[in-house]
């Protein structure tokens, strides 16, 4: 090892020189303004994909392998959807289901969030209940429908209960995994800054876990929407309102494939609309604000 010494660091330059040097570095090294332009491919590509699938569907139907009343074409389904719309049945079913979905999901959030925070912060509770909550997430919530009908009869309570059993474990798990993924350095900074246990949870843990939490909410919504549809298909009549699942089941009882396909498409469409209008913007904003979207395919 040669015993040469690199030149020492000396004080150089006046205060003014250093300030302008610093300003120059700052502007060179910080991120330049992002260009904002509406990307047409975001709209056109998904649209093209849908058109392609509809054409493929029409093509299959026109080959005539199956009877038309068993496998209706796109136009037939559109016709029966239009009929349902004119009668007002479609609107009623969408409104009923969406209302239930939103209310049930909101209650699930209110219940699941404190439980998730508690489980993620208290080791004893986490060890005791963690496996159970993960297990509940695997258990299909439809499995609760028979029990719920026996307990609550054919009432809205049945539908809500099944939704809770689907959404709550999923939101809890999302929050817990969000908390688990917090870099340990954040907590260290929090305690250096003198945060109490409560302040740590509110100012460090919760915001740091937010991306995971929103992921959990998204999945929680999917679970509650699915559970709702399942519950509506199985439990009909009584004091239950007429939802999209009920419409689907009615279509089956009438052996009307037009109604069945219409209901399926509407259920799918509502799911897509909620994802595009609610979760996608929230998630995107969240990730972009933290500089996590650079280079992603979103």
């Amino acid at each position: 090892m040669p015993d040469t010494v690199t030149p020492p660091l000396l004080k150089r330059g006046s205060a003014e020189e250093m300030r302008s040097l610093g300003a120059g570095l700052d502007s060179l090294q910080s991120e330049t303004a992002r260009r904002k332009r509406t990307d047409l491919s975001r709209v056109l590509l998904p649209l093209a994909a849908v058109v392609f699938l509809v054409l493929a569907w029409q093509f299959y139907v026109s080959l005539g392998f199956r009877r038309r009343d068993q496998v209706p074409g796109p136009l037939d389904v559109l016709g029966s959807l239009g009929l349902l719309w004119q009668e007002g049945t479609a609107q009623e079913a969408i409104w009923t289901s969406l209302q239930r979905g939103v209310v049930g999901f909101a209650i699930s959030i209110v219940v699941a969030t404190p439980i998730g925070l508690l489980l993620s912060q208290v080791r004893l509770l986490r060890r005791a209940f963690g496996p159970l909550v993960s297990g509940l997430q695997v258990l299909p919530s439809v499995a609760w429908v028979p029990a719920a009908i026996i307990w609550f009869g054919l009432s809205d309570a049945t539908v809500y209960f099944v939704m809770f059993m689907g959404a709550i474990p999923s939101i809890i798990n999302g929050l817990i995994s969000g908390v688990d993924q917090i870099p340990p350095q954040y907590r260290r900074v929090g305690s250096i800054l003198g945060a109490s246990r409560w302040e740590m949870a509110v100012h460090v843990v919760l915001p740091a876990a937010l991306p995971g939490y929103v992921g959990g909410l998204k999945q929680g919504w999917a679970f509650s929407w699915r559970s709702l549809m399942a519950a509506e298909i199985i439990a009909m009549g009584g004091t239950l309102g007429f939802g999209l699942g009920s419409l689907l089941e009615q279509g089956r009882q009438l052996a009307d494939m037009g109604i069945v396909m219409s209901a399926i498409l509407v259920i799918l469409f509502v799911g897509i609309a909620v994802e595009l209008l609610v979760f996608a913007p929230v998630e995107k904003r969240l990730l972009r604000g933290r500089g996590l979207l650079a280079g992603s395919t979103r």
Partner: protein
Amino acid sequence: MTETLTQTQALAAEALAAAGGRRTENGQQDRAPAVVLENVGKRFGAGPAVLEDINATVRQGEFVALLGASGCGKSTLLNIISGLDVPSSGALEVPSDGAAFMFQDASLFPWLSARGNVELALKLRGVGRAERRVRAGELLELVNLGNAADKRPHELSGGMRQRVALARSLAQDRALLLMDEPFAALDAITRDLLHNELERVWKETGRTIIFVTHNVREAVRLGQRVLLLSSRPGTVVAEWQVSEEHRTNAAKAVELTGDITARLREEIRRHA
């Protein structure tokens, strides 16, 4: 294994500082000690000692550079001084209100703007909303970041992030500031610049700073005193006084840097 932790009362320390200020022979200000380490040792579990018999005193308002090769337990020592960790043996005296800490990575919260990060430190100290905003603005101005206050950490360069981290640690308003290789990951020009800024901030705020680094030139550039820590176990093996002349006179700087580097290399060779 004994475990004694004495903490000076902040008030008593302040009174001492006010009463102090007598001049020593070499003309240096002899102030009340801010940090006293007596035979501090640390081992994790049954492993070998990481730190052993560390004796050092840091006076109020002093800038001490703690120099050592990798694995000498510099970070462990800082953790002990800050109260994040406790020593296995020995005693230490630290300010009772704890210490501000700056890490190698800025460790800013990515969901808060530069201002938000500084304001959070103030908020956790119990500063009211209106005053927080004013104070955070002043602190960001102090590190020349007034214009970038509303940017998120990912929109800032590494040097700017470290300056926000510096503003945040100043927001803690602790007399003692611990810095764990804060400029290690920066490019040379930015580092030069931050050396100047840190020196200026230190002079303007009168903080006591313990600055850990493995870079001899950085230690000489910044510290009034350089302490050399040996490796495995870490203990203070040498100490140098650095005068202002060492920072402006190239020949003197080269000489001191050479001395310290030679000693540091000797320490590292012992492990060959």
